[in-house]
């Protein structure tokens, strides 16, 4: 019998909370990139869009559109432009609306 059954009977609490402390293995997970808008030129953004295999990156004028939901964390954008993209370390990315996963990143030199 799993231990939590006994604990639950004793305490009257049948379920427990989400991991109380961060999981040590979490740092090893592949995670979507974060981008440095200051290092993102228009040409570089086009190269990143071309190198993305899962249509997670797109251009909308002076904005790089990053669809976190489509990202497979393959690391090709980080390999293409290490100065402009790095690991985010974020893996708890569940969203209650699809739009929450679409991020718009203004390029360097775009009108403020």
């Amino acid at each position, binding site marked *: 019998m*799993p231990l*939590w059954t006994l604990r639950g009977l004793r305490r009257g609490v*049948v*379920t*427990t*909370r*989400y*991991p109380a402390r961060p*999981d040590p293995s*979490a740092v090893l*997970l592949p995670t*979507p*990139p*974060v*981008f*440095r*808008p*200051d290092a993102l030129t228009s040409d570089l953004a086009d190269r990143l869009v071309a190198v993305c295999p*899962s*249509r*997670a990156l797109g251009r909308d004028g002076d904005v790089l559109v*990053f*669809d*976190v*939901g*489509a*990202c*497979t*964390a*393959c690391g090709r954008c980080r390999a293409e432009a290490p100065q402009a993209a*790095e690991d*985010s370390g*974020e*893996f*708890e*990315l*569940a*969203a*209650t*609306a*699809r739009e*929450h*996963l679409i*991020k718009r*990143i*203004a390029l360097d030199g775009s009108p*403020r």
Partner: protein
Amino acid sequence: MTSQSATGLNVPATSEELRRTVARMFGRSLHIRTLDTGSCASCEQEIRLLAAPHYDLHRLGFFFTPAPRHADLLMVTGPMVRAFETAARKTYDAMPDPKVVVATGACALGGVYQPDPFTHGGVGGTFPVDVWIPGCPPSPLALLQGLLVAVGRLADQVKDLDFALNRTPR
């Protein structure tokens, strides 16, 4: 606002109301039916690991069931191949109300495959999806967080992230 279902139970109409109902009804116990709509099985491997001792899904009050009629939550993986769509709809229809749909992995979220004669390229067109879990595949930790977001025990935190560093103030 609630509508009267065929069984005479009040069924929540809006997704926000559904979320509150789910938190009240399922916050402590919930049965999950997984549905593979053409995934590469990486997502299934990670979902399988949720029940392993390290992640121990059951301590959080979640259980897997093979029967859609016993399930409260439908965990959908894969890009929804067209050949499977009828079976997927039947699974969804067989589940009792209220029910929650969780789209799992980049394929299900529409990232990897484009719509073509073989696949819809995502599950969003087939079901009303309540929670989207990105990742290729999402790790068991990400799945756990997604399930807890689905039952309202954790907040959707990705909406506040902008995925940009050193943003110049405007």
